[in-house]
């Protein structure tokens, strides 16, 4: 059975785009000012990739609007001339979601970084998309409030990017993802209309359009204001690191914690290689040579957390922990998290190059999946470091390689893809938080069938009938996914004489 329906092919067919001409550039400059425009080739290259540096495309133009109205006006010009546009926040995404389109423009939201209002009584804030994730929590900290999603890049990454990717973080096991913490969006449609999705009330009447935009990776429109839900800081937070003699023992401890009815704020696991890299980078006090370390954090009401924290320690002991390190204060806790959150970047300390992978498995398949990854790593002759959110089965295997060795990059990429397909076989997902982007569009067929993809393409077409909003991301383009071009089929718009093919 083919991976795509005829309808799907028609919906995602690449239409010919317009051209970014000097006249177009001048029109954009008139909207945003020369200061909001980047067209020097050297400067444009700054935008040629996001956190996924393996793919690079130089955009024709980068626009840095300062208001919702400016974003909408630029998008209207793009819609008029069918020029593809890609929204970009801090560019920390790991799946190439902000990869530019050749001959298209990048709309950078970095200049829109104001916290517009904070409603303490109702525990919400309205922010512009360029505000950093950590910046939101910093802005409301004096009210004992915080924004719960906490991706590892939180100091740099923006809320606009978090909305696009539906970002999670270490604490989403208990608190959920960005989608669970966004009440309303000001949204510029691919036609350039400005609408509100969501609102003051917890629910709106009718299908939840806000929910489908969240996590749509910039393919349905551009978010220019975000109303976020804030949480009261918990009364107490308790954190420990438990070392285990092998990953299976750590995995069993996690299962026992869950079986005891405890919902930890976070449960993270690092393997020996990951610990080595983290210690070399930030000296966070993890035990070198330890085969598996668990970071467990509980938060909430003191009486309850104390009771459950004692239980967690007992479970770790029962599963053969070789060392229990309990954070005595906030500083010590911060040190533990610094080590964990530095994990990806720390790989540079132990390997010249590496791929960061992101896959999800049902948590109960943890042991068997780790064993398989180890076998695959041995077979490929490449080291794999493992860092993961053990509570929700979100794995981040880091495939280490040396790009200077002929063919190693290809082998590493192949291994990284094989690992994520293993996750799907186990009943999981190709991505838990990094997104599909450009990187995994072709892997969507491993998880979704032809009809599933067709319905997603219909949703996309409902928002963006011209296919100009971050094209090529999320949904696979058949001819780029190893499929030989089939017989020529005219697109309906082409048949109607509205467009021509590239």
């Amino acid at each position: 059975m083919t991976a795509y329906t005829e309808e799907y092919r028609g919906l995602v067919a690449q239409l010919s785009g317009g051209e970014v001409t000097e006249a177009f550039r001048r029109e954009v400059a008139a909207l945003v000012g020369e200061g909001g425009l980047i067209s020097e080739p050297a400067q444009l290259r700054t935008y040629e990739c996001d956190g996924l540096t393996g793919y690079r495309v130089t955009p024709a133009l980068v626009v840095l609007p300062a208001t919702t109205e400016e974003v909408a006006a630029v998008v209207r010009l793009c819609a008029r001339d069918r020029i593809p546009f890609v929204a970009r926040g801090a560019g920390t995404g790991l799946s190439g979601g902000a990869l530019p389109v050749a001959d298209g423009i990048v709309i950078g939201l970095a200049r829109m970084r104001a916290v517009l209002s904070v409603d303490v009584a109702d525990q919400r804030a309205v922010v512009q998309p360029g505000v950093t994730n950590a910046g939101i929590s910093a802005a409301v900290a004096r009210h004992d409030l915080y924004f719960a999603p906490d991706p590892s890049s939180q100091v740099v990454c923006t809320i606009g990017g978090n909305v696009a990717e539906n970002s999670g973080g270490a604490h989403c096991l208990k608190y959920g993802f960005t989608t669970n913490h966004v009440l309303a969006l000001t949204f510029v449609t691919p036609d350039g209309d400005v609408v509100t999705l969501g609102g003051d009330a917890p629910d709106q009447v009718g299908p939840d359009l806000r929910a489908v935009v969240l996590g749509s990776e910039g393919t349905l429109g551009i978010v220019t204001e975000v109303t976020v839900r804030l949480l009261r800081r918990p009364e107490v937070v308790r954190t420990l690191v438990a070392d285990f003699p092998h990953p299976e023992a750590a995995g069993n401890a996690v299962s026992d914690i869950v079986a005891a009815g405890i919902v930890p704020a976070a449960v993270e696991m690092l393997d020996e290689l990951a610990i080595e890299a983290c210690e070399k980078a930030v000296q966070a006090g993890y035990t070198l040579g330890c085969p598996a370390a668990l970071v467990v954090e509980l938060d909430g009401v003191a009486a309850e957390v104390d009771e459950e924290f004692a239980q967690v320690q007992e479970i770790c002991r029962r599963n053969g922990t070789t060392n229990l390190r309990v954070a005595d204060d906030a500083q010590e806790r911060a040190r533990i998290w610094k080590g964990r959150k530095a994990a990806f970047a720390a790989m540079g300390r132990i390997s010249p190059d590496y791929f960061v992978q992101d896959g999800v498995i049902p948590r109960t398949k943890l042991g068997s999946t780790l064993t398989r990854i180890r076998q695959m790593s041995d077979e490929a002759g490449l080291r794999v470091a493992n860092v993961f959110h053990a509570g929700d089965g979100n794995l981040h295997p880091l495939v280490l390689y040396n790009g200077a060795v002929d063919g190693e990059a290809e082998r590493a990429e192949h291994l990284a893809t094989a690992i994520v397909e293993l996750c799907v076989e186990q009943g999981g997902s190709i991505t838990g938080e990094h997104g599909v982007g450009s990187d995994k569009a072709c892997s969507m067929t491993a998880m979704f069938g032809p009809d599933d993809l067709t319905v997603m393409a219909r949703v996309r077409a409902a928002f963006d009938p011209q296919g100009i909003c971050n094209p090529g991301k999320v949904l696979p383009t058949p001819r780029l996914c190893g499929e030989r071009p089939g017989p020529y089929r005219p697109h309906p718009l082409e048949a109607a004489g509205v467009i021509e093919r590239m």
Partner: protein
Amino acid sequence: MTQTDDTAVVERPATVAEAAELLRGTDGPLLFRGAGTKQRWAGRPVDPAVVVDTTGLSGVLSHEPADMTVAVGAGMPLADLQALLAENGQWLALDPATGAAGATVGGLLATGDSGPRRLRYGALRDLVIGVTLVLPDGIVARGGGRVIKNVAGYDLPKLLYGSLGTLGLVAEVVLRLHPVPQASATATVAVPVDRATELALRLRASALEPAAVDWTDADGGTLAVRFEGTPAGVEGRRVAVLDLLGAGAGWSTGEDEDVVWSRLADAERSVGEGTTVAAAGTRPSVTTDVARALEQAGAAAGVRTGLTSRPALGLHTARFDGSPEAVGPAVAAWRERVLALGGSVLLRDRPAAVDAEVDPLGPPPSSVGLLRSLARRLDPSGRCAPGRLGSWLPAPATGEDLARS
């Protein structure tokens, strides 16, 4: 299984494939129905050609207690699911008042119905992780997955939340589960709405983490605040909670606690055929204004009103008793005030005659163009409950096909 229901044919598919075949093989307006507890919410759909009864799709498809997830047919009653999950000390953290009347999982997702403990656990929107959707052309699509954490593809499960059966048939639902809390206790205090709102905000601002905060205007006003967790965790809050609530506050557990919440659920439910029920959503802090506006609207129109609120969430359920000619203007007046406060009002159960007096949905949101565009793509012939979203999603004229390429 086929039977007729007034003019419509009622079909009860036993599998997703049968449902797809049914939708593909029929023409005309469709109405999807689970237990039918919320068929009178929002606009009145045109008479359907086919009613699709989902109660044949009621099996457990997979249940992994250790993964805390379950996949079920959309027609499974919530109460049956809870009984099953309880065997493993788990539950779907959802406690809608309609659960007692047999509400199904699919119907709850499609209507966005929730209960008091939404405060702690979120709505079904926050608990759904996967869905199987059947579109009117018979295409069967899955969205989401079977794991809690997953960002692959568009979030179709959440898109369907509150869709009221207007995009397609919810056939299967995958859910994340929670452990049943070991202990629970509820503090109650008799207070009017302004004090209740103030207390609700103070509870939210505290580190006490209430699981539910409900207020009803019955008997001059009662606020109930629920806490869940370990026995020590619940009991450990008692002093601080009673101190915060002030003089006269009580603390109940066990059967006494159940009585508190079943009374609140009764107050939220429609009491009789003549009652009009409307639901509002607002910022939590304007709860007092919502209640005052209701009193004034009722008094001005000579209509008896009642209110149940979740003042920490900003969700309100109002009841109107009176002649339809009087209830209509009362609802309209209340809605005008709630809209001015930034909220919205949706009609639920009511006598048919009320519809002539007041729009069941209110003014369309700025995003109505996207809604229509989405419906055109997923339901090009406008077959799914046409009329349910009133003027927002107009029913196509006979023979008109909204499809466009």
